[in-house]
C-alpha cells in the first residue's frame, strides 16, 4: 500500500490501520525535520505528534492527486515556523541573522571538553547552534535539501514557491551558515570571496518571508 492509498483509506473510511501505517512510516522523518528546525528534541516530539494530529483532522482537505509527503512536510514546516515564532517572542531562542545581512557572533551552548573523542560532538553542536541562527526561510530549505534529501523541485512544491526561489534561498542559507561557521572551518577553504565574479554582482538577495 502506497502512502497515497493509505491516506485515501483514512480520508474515505477513517481507517485506523491505514493511519497507523502512515504514522509508522513518517514519524521518524517528521520528528527529525522538527528537531533540525527547532534544535529541541522534546519540542520536536510534540511537534511531530501535532503534525499527525493535524493530518488526521484535515484528512478531508487532502487532494488524492497530491503526494502525501508534500502535504505532511508542509504541515510540519508550518508548525515549526509557528513554534519558532512563539519562542522568539518569548525570548527562548537567540535572534537570527539580521535583515541587514550582518550575522551576530556565533554563541555556542556547548562547553568544550578536553577529550578528543568528543570533538565530533563539539562540531555537531556548533553546527546545530549555527543552523538555529540562520534565518528561518533559508534554514527550512537547508534542512529539507541537505538533511531530508528533498529535491529543489519538491521543496518548491512544499513551500509553494518557484524552484528558482528555493535555489536562491539555498544559496543564501549556505552563505549565512558558512559565515557563521567560519571560525571552525579551515581558513583557506571556508572564506567566501569578498569580491564575487562579475556575473554574481547585482544579484538580488532573496528576502526572507516575514
Amino acid at each position, binding site marked *: 500500500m502506497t502512502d497515497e492509498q493509505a491516506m485515501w483509506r483514512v480520508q474515505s473510511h477513517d481507517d*485506523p490501520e491505514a*493511519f*497507523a*501505517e502512515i*504514522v*509508522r512510516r513518517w*514519524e*521518524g522523518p517528521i*520528528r*527529525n525535520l522538527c*528537531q*533540525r528546525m527547532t534544535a529541541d528534541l522534546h519540542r520536536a516530539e510534540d511537534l*511531530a*505528534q501535532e503534525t*499527525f*494530529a493535524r493530518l*488526521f483532522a484535515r484528512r478531508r482537505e487532502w487532494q488524492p492527486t497530491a503526494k502525501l509527503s508534500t502535504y505532511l512536510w508542509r504541515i510540519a514546516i508550518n508548525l515549526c515556523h509557528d513554534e519558532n515564532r512563539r519562542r522568539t517572542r518569548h525570548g527562548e531562542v537567540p535572534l537570527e541573522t539580521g535583515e541587514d545581512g550582518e550575522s551576530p557572533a556565533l554563541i555556542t551552548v556547548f562547553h568544550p571538553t578536553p577529550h578528543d573523542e568528543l570533538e*565530533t560532538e563539539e*562540531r*555537531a*553542536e*556548533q*553546527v*546545530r547552534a549555527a*543552523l538555529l541562527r540562520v534565518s528561518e526561510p533559508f534554514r527550512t530549505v*537547508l534542512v529539507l*535539501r*541537505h*538533511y531530508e534529501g528533498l*529535491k*529543489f523541485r519538491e521543496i518548491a512544491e512544499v513551500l509553494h514557491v518557484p524552484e*528558482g526561489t528555493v*535555489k*536562491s534561498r*539555498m*544559496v543564501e542559507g*549556505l552563505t549565512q*551558515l*558558512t559565515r557563521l*561557521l567560519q571560525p*571552525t*572551518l*579551515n581558513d583557506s*577553504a*571556508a*572564506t*567566501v*570571496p569578498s*569580491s*564575487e*565574479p*562579475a*556575473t*554574481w554582482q547585482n*544579484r538580488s538577495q532573496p528576502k526572507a518571508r516575514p
Partner: protein
Amino acid sequence: MNHPTREDLVAHLYGELPPEQQTELAAHLRECADCQKVATAWRGTMAELDTWQLPVLPARPKSTPAFFAPFVRWAAAACLAAGLGFLGGRFSAPAPDAVALRAALAPELSKISAAMDAKLAEDRRAVTEILRTMQTQRTEDYASLRRALETLALNTEDSLETAQQQIVQLATFTEPAQR
C-alpha cells in the same frame, strides 16, 4: 564559459543539474579560481552539516504506533466527556411539566385516535361483508349439490328397479313345450 550563477553552483554541488551542464560546470570550476573558492567554502559547510547526526531511534512495532495512541486516548476522553455531559444534563435538567404537555397534546392525540378508530371500523365492515358473501355462496353451492345427488339417486333407483324386474322375469322364464 561565463561564471555560473550561484543557484547553478549550488545545484551542481547537490547534483541537480542536467548531466551536460554538470560536466560543463565542473570544467569551469577547474579553471576558475573565484568560483572554485566559493564551491570549496560551500563544500566545507556541507561537510560540517553532516557532522550533526541525529540518533536513530529504534523502529516501533507495527502493532503499537506511537503517535496513534494519543488519538485513541483523545477519542476515549472525548467519549467520556460526552457521556458525563449527557448524564449531567440528564440529571440536572428540570423535569418537564407533564400535565401541561399532556393538555397541549390531547386535542391532536384525540384526532389521531378518532381517525384510527374510523379506519378500523371501515376495515371491519369490509371484512364482514366479504365473509357474508362467502357464506351465501357456500349455501347455494350446497343446495345445488344436494339437488344433483337426489336426482342421481332417483335415477339410480329406477335403474335398479328395472334391473330387478328383468332378473325376476328371467328367473321365472319357462321354456314353452315343444310341439
